[in-house]
């Protein structure tokens, strides 16, 4: 009798074990998407592109590189050791299901590191696609949100790396470069989504594009090589060649969920300075004392930007104090700026430069788009006691009325490993 009962229990348990493990999936039963791209579709709502790495070349018989590097077969979507797949459907989740009809493994979004929206789609509004990402349990809210010029599909096809083997590593490190240059911000999905529904501020996203290497004009010995610091460049237009075609520079500015404009690289820096997320970057200013000579400086924020707000007869007044520390990168004119008497001059130059830049950026946001991407709303909220009043006031509409006062305090701290530049000696031909 005991044997019979124990047999029964074992049978039940094993049937339980084998039938209920629908959640347990082997690692190689799934493919892990690295990047998701959304385009405006022709016949339906959305065209979804995903990229995931393949598992070839992993057997222990040694490392045979399959396909070699740089092999992009446009038809089957094989890009290096990843596969790029595109499908057209009515929503993101349904697109994933449609893809599963041809992909042999389940497509899993748990390792997705970025989501890309094309600019056309962004200008129409992406609220439909924010929802599934926020609600779905597999997606991570720390993925980066990128807006790209052109189509997301082409963009993702260029997401490869020639430096190493792993595309995932390349992607993670790419978004970390924001900390070293400040030319593009870091916008995790969490921040973006928060800002979309927030009464305090409006969202912005990284602006990216594909460079086709045609912007590097052929060398011309007759060109005067003018000094043009702080030029406005859109992503995809940087005059360069080599390495990835994929480049991120600038910000896309949103009103609600619709994209309304872009900020250039230096304007992005000013935005990041005001929101205290600027870490460091090299800024070039034109030397006032010697035109056409540049002074590149390694600048960083000294301490967090102080923003104070108060109301003057129902006009919000915002005082911004930015503290900048700089290290001299080079002084092309060889003017002795390192001397104590001259340093304040240099400081003033920097201050005027940055102050002008910040004021212009904020004015642009106020007048052209009326979007508070600087999160001033959070400081304004301090002047209200209850949320009902604040929501009734509707700061986002009143942003354009605000009066902004910017104060920059720049300090050149270090001069590199040189102090004083000795003048260059030329020898002249005696007539």
């Amino acid at each position, binding site marked *: 009798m005991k044997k019979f009962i124990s047999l029964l229990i074992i049978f039940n348990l094993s049937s*339980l074990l084998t039938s*209920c*493990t*629908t*959640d347990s999936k082997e690692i190689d039963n799934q493919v892990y998407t690295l990047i998701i791209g959304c385009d405006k579709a022709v016949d339906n709502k959305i065209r979804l592109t995903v990229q995931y790495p393949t598992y070839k070349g992993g057997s222990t018989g040694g490392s045979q590189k399959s396909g070699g590097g740089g092999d992009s077969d446009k038809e089957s979507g094989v890009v290096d050791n990843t596969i790029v797949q595109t499908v057209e459907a009515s929503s993101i989740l349904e697109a994933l299901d449609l893809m599963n009809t041809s992909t042999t493994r389940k497509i899993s979004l*748990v390792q997705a590191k970025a989501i890309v929206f094309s600019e056309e789609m962004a200008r129409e509004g992406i609220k439909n696609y924010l929802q599934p990402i926020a609600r779905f*349990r597999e997606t*991570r*809210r*720390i993925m980066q949100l990128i807006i790209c010029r052109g189509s997301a599909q082409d963009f993702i096809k260029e997401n490869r790396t020639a430096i190493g083997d792993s595309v995932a*590593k390349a992607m*993670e*490190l790419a978004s970390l470069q924001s900390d070293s240059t400040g030319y593009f911000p870091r916008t*995790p999905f*969490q921040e973006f*989504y*928060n800002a979309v*529904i*927030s*009464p*305090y501020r409006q969202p912005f996203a990284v602006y990216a594009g594909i460079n086709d290497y045609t912007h590097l004009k052929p060398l011309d010995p007759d060109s005067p090589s003018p000094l043009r610091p702080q030029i406005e460049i859109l992503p995809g237009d940087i005059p360069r060649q080599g390495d990835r075609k994929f480049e991120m520079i600038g910000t896309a500015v949103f009103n609600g969920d619709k994209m309304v404009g872009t900020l250039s690289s230096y304007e992005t820096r000013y935005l990041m300075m005001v929101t205290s997320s600027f870490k460091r970057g090299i800024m070039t200013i034109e030397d006032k004392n010697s035109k056409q000579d540049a002074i590149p400086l390694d600048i960083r924020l000294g301490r967090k930007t102080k923003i104070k707000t108060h109301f003057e007869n129902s006009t919000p007044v915002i005082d911004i104090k930015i503290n900048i520390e700089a290290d001299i990168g080079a002084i092309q004119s060889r003017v002795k700026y390192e001397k104590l008497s001259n340093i304040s001059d240099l400081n003033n130059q920097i201050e005027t430069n940055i102050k002008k830049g910040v004021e212009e950026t904020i004015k642009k946001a106020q007048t052209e788009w009326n979007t508070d991407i600087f*999160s001033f709303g*959070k*400081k304004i*909220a*301090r002047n*209200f*006691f*209850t*949320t*009902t*009043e*604040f929501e009734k006031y509707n700061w986002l509409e009143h942003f354009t009325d605000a009066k902004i006062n910017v104060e920059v305090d720049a300090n050149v701290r270090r001069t590199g490993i040189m102090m004083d530049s000795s003048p260059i000696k030329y020898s002249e031909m005696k007539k």
Partner: protein
Amino acid sequence: MMKEGKFGTMEAVALTTIVLITKAFYTSIRVLVKATSTSAWFATLISCSVSILLFLLVYLLMKRFPNKELVEIFEIVTGKFIGKILALIFSAYFVYYAGSSLREFVEMIKAYVLPYTPPSAIIFVFLAVVVFFAYVGLEGIARMSYISLIIVIIGLTLILILPLPFYNVDNLFPLAGYSLQTTLFSGLLRASAYSDVIFLAFIINAIHGVKQFKKVGLTSLALSGAIISVTILCSILAFEYTQASENLSALFQLSRNIYFNRFFQRVESIFIFIWVVASIMNVALAFYMSASIFCKTFKIPNHRPSLLPFAFCTFTVTLLPQSLSEVVERNVLFLRQYSAVITYLIPLLVLLLSLIRGKKGEKIKI
């Protein structure tokens, strides 16, 4: 009569605190933030203080009848029949509490971790653990809760500290939420959220008497109020109040936001551990209390035979609601807003009745 064993003050405090903080893992935070926006963190402090006041009133009742558990007090004051009915109401309330907590837990785990597993497998495993806990008895549960509290507090500290880069103090302004009146009102209304502390009144003999009862109750109420308030505070700091009122589980979402570098991200699965530990302790205690009150009412000497039928009842209660929305809007709402009617009002009425009828317990010689 049932022999329950004895345990010390620290274990009793740990037991009560764990039962009270488990609700921070679930949907209650979201509801509170939706009702009061940025002032949710001190609305809960108001609830805690109201609960402390009501608890002190219950303490007065217990002081009148030293060393008698609440079941016996019911019978002494209101007579055998009504006393039994009152005690059985409490037993049913604890079964409902256990079932609803279990259901909320299952919904949460299916949403975040195991979406395609049949819920009966999850419930079965959970109930097996809970029945084993109740089988071992109250002493075992108390000792285990001491260890669990240490684990939960360490985990909670980690979850609240690691997303530090995301915290922004400005998210707390404007300070008073929708309005001061709404804050006060919500605070008062949700005082029932802390009313589970009443279970201490049923096991007075295990915690060495009425003086300890007061000390344990007050300490654990204060501690859990502080912890829940800090949790809500961090949730608002990390997400502004608009998003905080959307998250299904504030703590889980916080743990999903942890990102330090390429290697230290998406570590929320570690926090499944502490959350399951806290939930098991919560449901185990409620389950044990229901079985124990039942046995005390009918003077059954051993609570172990009644565990399986109670497990079945809890299982039924767990499966009653049809969807997550029903759980949140009916069960949890009842437990967090209206349960004070049962847990506090009944002892208060009994206190009044005892004052009127002049019943008192015998003074014990110390």
